[in-house]
């Protein structure tokens, strides 16, 4: 590669970095003040693009003005700012005191609702905006044609950085924002109206997201995949730069933008005889960079380490679950008897659905061990589910016996979880959550791109259980046995000394350490156990579907598990089963009834987090007795 084309590739990287910075600046600004990691930031970006398209088309047709695009972009940014303020007022305001798990999940609910609202309003077709008049040509630089618009984007990032820096350092508003980021309670005590500040900051962050969405329009069509595509990048940039740090986001965006461009420029590289297709790595390179940086600097490049978690009162959602009583055992026996009789009903579809529910319940229960009891928010639990599924599928494809393939799954997933745990044991809170996401994305892209072994996007087919349990009914009984044992084991674990120590470490790491509990060791052990059970669920999944594809370990599956856990109720003994049953049934019913089932699921998520944070199980154990008492 010549020096000239290297220079051009650096320019390309910087142009992409510039818009990546602006969208990430909004995300990091919101986090700095409200401490909410806003999953819906990508959705705001997407709305910006669609509004700018519609407004641009309307204005351009109406006035035929060369400025139509700029007016449309401004309009879109302002509109998205208003939508952001609305979301803050109606939803997030209720959640500032809630655990971060609920906050993250709530913003994911917004993602689902916005996705379907956009589909309904703008249709499924991609919307490619017109080119910007005056910036629609190319300039010759370093012997290559460079689009003028890229050069414009190159300027936008630094301009926004300077504007935000002036706003933060030189104005009274900036002073208040900085004060509130540093100490919310003290700022409130000094008479700062926290509620209004939060709304304004959220609107400003949303404005930046909308602006970036609009400015992206001349380079790519507005489309329904923009939200999740940009949010992963923006997360990486904000975490890499240090949550809450605007200069950090700027540096991180440049690192990511340039690394990606260089990977594409490098083409196939041969290192020690092995050929690596560098362009393929762009899918994960940002996650690898983030993981490496977090291992060395647990708070990102410019972030300050979070205050050590103090002894806090245990929120209701996480109150210690009660030891199973005779009544619980009785309920379990009745449930099991009912499940055992189900095949007699002769409804084949009910059996298929029940198998799905059982597998989901085991998966959810395994997540509860680390996220519920261990306090480690995991956004990548699907990684272990998928590793288990792939391990079994690969073993089956290589003609290993069924039992070996089944055992291999939890073993492989457990080892992966152990390795992950050993690497990131220093991290906690939101940084750890982001690293779980990064790990899942890396595993996902390996499954997607290593065609020779994993079958790429086609996955592995032809994975069926042996003849003895090949019939639907037999397989159902098999799954029922395994899942019943798995769920029981996970409940027993919660009440061993290990389980108590784990929950103690969650609620007060300091006090746990002082009592002689090795908090890190407990967490690693919990990760390995949870990974193993998730892997077992994944194996059953592969056998029930006859194969596995990369979607087994994609982000939505991780989120599904979180939603099922919350829906069932974190502190309810039967929570995972209740959550899995309700969620699977709901998704199935909605998908058959309407094209807009995502919005339905999103609304359910929003209802849980804002109205029923205790989930179905919580209603049964907490509200019902109260109601009965009040009635008496």
């Amino acid at each position, binding site marked *: *590669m*010549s020096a000239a*084309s290297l220079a*051009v*590739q650096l320019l*390309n*990287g910087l*142009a*992409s970095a510039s818009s990546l910075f602006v969208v990430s600046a909004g995300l990091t600004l919101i986090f700095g003040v409200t401490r909410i990691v806003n999953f819906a930031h990508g959705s705001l970006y997407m709305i910006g693009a669609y509004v700018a398209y519609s407004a641009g088309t309307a204005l351009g047709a109406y006035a035929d003005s060369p400025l139509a695009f700029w007016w449309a972009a401004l309009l879109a940014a302002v509109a998205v700012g208003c939508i952001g303020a609305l979301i803050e007022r109606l939803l997030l305001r209720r959640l500032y005191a809630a655990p971060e798990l609920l906050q993250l999940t709530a913003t994911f609910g917004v993602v689902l609702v916005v996705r379907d609202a956009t589909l309904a309003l703008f249709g499924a*077709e*991609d*919307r*490619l905006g017109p*080119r910007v008049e005056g910036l629609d*040509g*190319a300039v010759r630089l370093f012997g*290559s*044609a*460079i*689009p003028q618009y*890229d050069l414009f984007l190159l300027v936008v990032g630094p301009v926004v950085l300077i504007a935000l820096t002036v706003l933060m350092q030189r104005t009274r508003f900036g002073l208040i924002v900085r004060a509130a980021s540093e100490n919310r309670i003290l700022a409130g005590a000094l008479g700062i109206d926290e509620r209004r500040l939060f709304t304004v900051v959220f609107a400003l962050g949303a404005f930046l997201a909308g602006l970036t969405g609009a400015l992206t329009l*001349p*380079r*790519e*069509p507005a*489309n329904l*995949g*923009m939200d999740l*595509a940009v949010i992963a990048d923006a997360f990486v940039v904000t975490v890499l730069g240090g949550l809450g740090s605007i200069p950090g986001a700027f540096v991180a965006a440049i690192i990511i933008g340039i690394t*990606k*461009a260089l990977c*594409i*420029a490098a*083409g196939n590289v041969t290192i020690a005889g092995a050929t690596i297709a560098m*362009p*393929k790595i*762009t*899918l994960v390179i940002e996650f690898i960079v983030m993981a490496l940086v977090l291992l060395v600097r647990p708070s990102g490049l410019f972030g300050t380490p979070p205050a050590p978690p103090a002894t806090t009162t245990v929120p209701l959602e996480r109150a210690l679950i009660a030891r199973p009583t005779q009544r619980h055992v009785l309920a379990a026996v009745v449930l099991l008897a009912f499940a055992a009789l189900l095949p007699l009903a002769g409804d084949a579809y009910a059996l298929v659905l029940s198998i799905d529910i059982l597998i989901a319940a085991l998966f959810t229960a395994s997540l509860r061990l680390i996220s519920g009891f261990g306090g480690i928010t995991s956004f990548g639990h699907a990684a272990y589910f998928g590793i288990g599924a792939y391990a079994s599928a690969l073993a089956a494809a290589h003609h290993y016996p069924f039992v070996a393939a089944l055992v291999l799954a939890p073993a492989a997933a457990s080892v992966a979880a152990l390795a992950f745990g050993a690497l990131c044991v220093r991290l906690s809170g939101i940084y750890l959550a982001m690293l779980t996401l990064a790990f899942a994305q890396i595993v996902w*892209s390996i499954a997607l*791109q290593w065609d020779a072994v994993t079958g790429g*996007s086609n996955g592995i087919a032809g994975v069926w259980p042996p003849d003895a349990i090949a019939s639907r009914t037999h397989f159902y009984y098999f799954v029922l046995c395994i899942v019943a044992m798995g769920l029981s084991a996970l409940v027993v674990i919660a009440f061993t000394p290990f389980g108590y120590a784990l929950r103690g470490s969650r609620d007060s790491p300091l006090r746990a350490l002082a009592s002689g509990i090795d908090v890190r060791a407990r967490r690693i052990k919990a990760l390995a156990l949870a990974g193993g059970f998730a892997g077992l669920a994944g194996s059953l999944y592969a056998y029930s579907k006859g194969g596995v594809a990369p979607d087994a370990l994609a982000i939505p599956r991780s989120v599904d598990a979180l939603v099922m856990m919350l829906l069932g109720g974190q502190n309810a003994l039967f929570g995972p089963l209740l959550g899995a049953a309700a969620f699977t049934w709901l998704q199935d019913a909605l998908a058959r009834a309407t094209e807009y089932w995502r919005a339905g699921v999103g609304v359910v998520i929003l209802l849980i987090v804002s109205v029923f944070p205790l989930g179905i199980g919580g209603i049964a154990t907490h509200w019902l007795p109260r109601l009965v008492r009040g009635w008496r």
Partner: protein
Amino acid sequence: MPLGKIEPGAVVQALLDAHPDAIFSSLFGPDLARFVREGQLRGLFKDRPVFNLLGGEPEYLDPLKDEAPVGWFVTGYPWYAIDTPEHQRFRDAYQKKFNDYPRLGSVVGYSAVKTAAAALQRAGSTDTDKLVAAMQDLRVDTPFGAVTYRALDHQSTMGAYVGRIGVHDGKGVMVDWRYADGKDYLPPDDVVRRLRPAD
């Protein structure tokens, strides 16, 4: 390139640096639009034939409007110009029901459901083995004409419309197209047997 995440500027520049004689790709969706815009600005397509599978499908061609890259060789679906009786029936029924024109996805989805129905009818049961047997050399009428599911490798003989991109009234269209029947282009039987040895 990772699906849906193409970095258009960097990719186009890397292609320019490689000085290819021609370009073969199967980009679609937002990736295609990004690539077309960036490639036209940077002069990638000048004097260079481009073969892009799927590029003529209305799903991906229509968003490009008058920027559709004229002269590209593509596969697609010229729904406005196919006048075989079976396709006309399908198109008229589709437009009547949905008040919109069919996309290639509409044809594929329709044919898939028709196939499932035909297989069930022939098997007379939902039993797996009977369904497998019913699918052997199953013949199904689709909007593109009759297709067969070959017993040998379970591939259908549904073909593709192959042509070049042109622009007409500010919209991308397919010109000089013809239907390439799948039965003439699938690998011959002996090749299939070599690729898929019986277990």
